[in-house]
């Protein structure tokens, strides 16, 4: 007996992707995640542009991760040109990234995941029965956007974060206003955690996972770091990201997959908490302790709970950053002066979906000669396929109608961002 399950389009994810499963004689013959997104070739197209034009173009790889793309891009440019930005700039950039994390996690949890687990086709349908909860989710999402607007100048594709610093610095009143909203948001994020941690998580998709994330090597949990750490015990400098991501063209799909020592791995909120969770503090730490299940059982569906914990973390950390900025005066600094030189540099930031790497080379006139970007979804793709296979093996006797929503649930748990998959392409067009 053979059967084939083809999901043409997984809805409620960003970008266009599908799933193909082939079963022969009761055994799983093939499982793959198809990517139908058109290719934009932004990396070769940006060659020849001057250093200050790179971020405004490459942030447009993805709307929902545009803040992290911007910051990773600026860090790569500055690494290549030998620019050291001020502590104030670093804090403001982190606040921008935390805003992106809040917005993205709130969108994923309330618009994509919770309706999924509660069997509603969309957040709008969910709102007809749970208006209060959906409204709370939208307010959290808006909070993330307000931070990005205040610091970055726009919720999508920030204009204010530039090489060397910021165009205009926020004023005290703006930061105080944000802090007030964040304090309200903290309560909402805790309520969100209660909802997400009470969802029944199916156990059809459990297998050993390797996790990778930037190592929080300071005092607390962080979305930044100079090294990447893996649950295998390996630690690598971000400049050697190619050793980790090790992209390869895979015969069955021709999509580029990332493998570490020939094994797939997972990046994202779950991986970050697996590797850096002991550094959480405050309410986020309490939330992690309160979880009634083992987050690290190898079930990717727990990524949703990990995102809920990070929602709490990002709000608490944003309040902390604002307090630090307000503890003195905001320095009226201009962006750093840039001295042109040839060079190569790498920037890495934990995007909502996992580690994002930008790496560039410039000639002595400050024009880009090469750009390489590794997005979280590109890294997760091989692991998604692994988990789809595990799920199909566990559910092999189920009908197509019962199998399809479960496989979609696995894909959505990764919060894949296919727009982001800059050089990730599936060529199996039907």
């Amino acid at each position, binding site marked *: 007996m053979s059967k084939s399950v083809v999901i043409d389009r997984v*809805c*409620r*994810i*960003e*970008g266009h992707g599908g799933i193909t499963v082939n079963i022969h004689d009761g055994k799983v013959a093939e499982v793959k995640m198809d990517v139908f*997104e*058109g*290719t*934009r*070739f*932004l*990396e*070769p*197209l940006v060659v*020849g*542009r*001057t250093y200050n*034009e790179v971020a*405004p*173009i490459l942030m*447009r*790889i*993805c*709307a*929902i991760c*545009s803040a992290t793309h911007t910051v990773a891009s600026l860090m790569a440019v500055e690494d290549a040109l030998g620019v050291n930005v001020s502590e104030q700039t670093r804090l403001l950039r982190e606040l921008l990234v935390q805003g992106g994390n809040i917005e993205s996690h709130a*969108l994923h949890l309330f*618009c994509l995941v919770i309706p999924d687990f509660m069997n509603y*086709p*969309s*957040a*709008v*349908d969910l*709102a007809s029965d749970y208006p209060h909860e*959906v*409204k709370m989710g*939208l*307010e959290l*999402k*808006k909070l993330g*956007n307000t931070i990005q607007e205040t610091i970055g*100048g*726009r*919720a*999508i*594709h920030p*204009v*204010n974060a*530039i090489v060397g610093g*910021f*165009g*205009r610095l926020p004023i005290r009143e703006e930061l105080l206003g944000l802090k007030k909203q964040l304090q309200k948001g903290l309560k909402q994020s805790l309520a969100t955690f209660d909802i997400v941690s009470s969802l029944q998580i199916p156990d059809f998709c459990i297998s050993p996972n390797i996790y990778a994330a930037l190592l929080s090597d300071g005092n607390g949990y962080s979305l930044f770091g100079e090294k990447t750490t893996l649950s295998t015990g390996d630690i690598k400098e971000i400049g050697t990201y190619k050793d980790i991501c090790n992209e390869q*063209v895979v015969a069955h799909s*021709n999509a*580029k997959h990332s493998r570490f020592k020939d094994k797939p791995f997972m990046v994202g909120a779950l991986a970050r908490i697996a590797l850096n969770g002991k550094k959480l503090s405050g309410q986020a730490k309490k939330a992690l302790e309160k979880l009634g299940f083992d987050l690290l059982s190898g079930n990717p569906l727990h990524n949703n709970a990990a995102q809920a914990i990070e929602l709490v973390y990002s709000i608490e950390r944003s309040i902390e950053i604002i307090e630090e900025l307000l503890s003195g005066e905001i320095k009226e600094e201009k962006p750093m002066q840039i001295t042109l030189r040839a060079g190569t540099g790498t920037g890495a930031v934990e995007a909502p979906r996992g580690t994002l790497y930008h790496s560039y080379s410039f000639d002595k006139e400050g024009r880009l000669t090469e750009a390489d970007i590794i997005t979280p979804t590109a890294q997760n793709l091989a692991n998604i396929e692994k988990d789809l296979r595990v799920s199909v093996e566990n559910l092999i006797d189920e009908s197509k109608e019962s199998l399809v929503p479960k496989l979609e649930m696995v894909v959505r748990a990764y919060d894949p961002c296919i*727009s982001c998959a800059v*050089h990730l*392409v599936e*060529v199996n*067009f039907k």
Partner: protein
Amino acid sequence: MDKPNVGIYGLTGCAGDQLSILNCEDELLDIAGSLNIKFFPMAMTCNDEDSALDIVFIEGSVVQPEDEQMLKKLRDRATFLVAIGTCAVWGGVQAMKNEIAREELKQKVYGPAGKDFETIAPQPLNHFVKVDLAISGCPIEKEQLLQTVAALLHGDLPTLPNYPVCTECKMAEYTCVLIEKGQLCLGPITVAGCKARCPSYTRPCIGCRGPVEEANVSSEFRVLREKGFTKIDIQNRLHTFAAQADALNIESLKEAVDE
């Protein structure tokens, strides 16, 4: 118009214009209540793939045969087609160097695997189908989107600006980044609607909304040359978001390539 049937879809792009719809957090449930959203794969399951639509909003540009097929199908389904975002209206950043053969780019990024999939030089929607209304912006401005939905619900069209960012900038009395600060600002030739966001952050306009009607690009080019910018830097900036716009392909630029 009572509750129109609506579709929302993204061809190839960053999904930022669909996300801008979802970013109307305060208005989202009201919008959803006043429309019959039949097709919006990014935000809902159970999409109606075939029925007639009164209005379809499409973002992204056409970069592969599948995009073209989907666009034509949506055009056939819909009475009124709205292009949302600079990719849909002008081609966007992916269309910045369409003179480079796609085959060459595929080889560079994918090596031999590249030959197995088809890709075409990115094009805006109106190269393939009739577009009834174009809302540009990278991404679109929330206010323009809400205005458009409100107008269409009343059987009317929105009034979108036909003047440049420069006008909005002067009205807000920001320091001129082009004349006073000598930066490569495209405010004089870019269509308004963003309330001169970049100049408000002391940054030059980089033209993300595409050219304004009757843009005097030759004059802009002359001013920028006088400010000391090289022809190649001016060309690069002009050709970032709307490289295919006729208005931005002036004679002086053709000479720039030979220089």
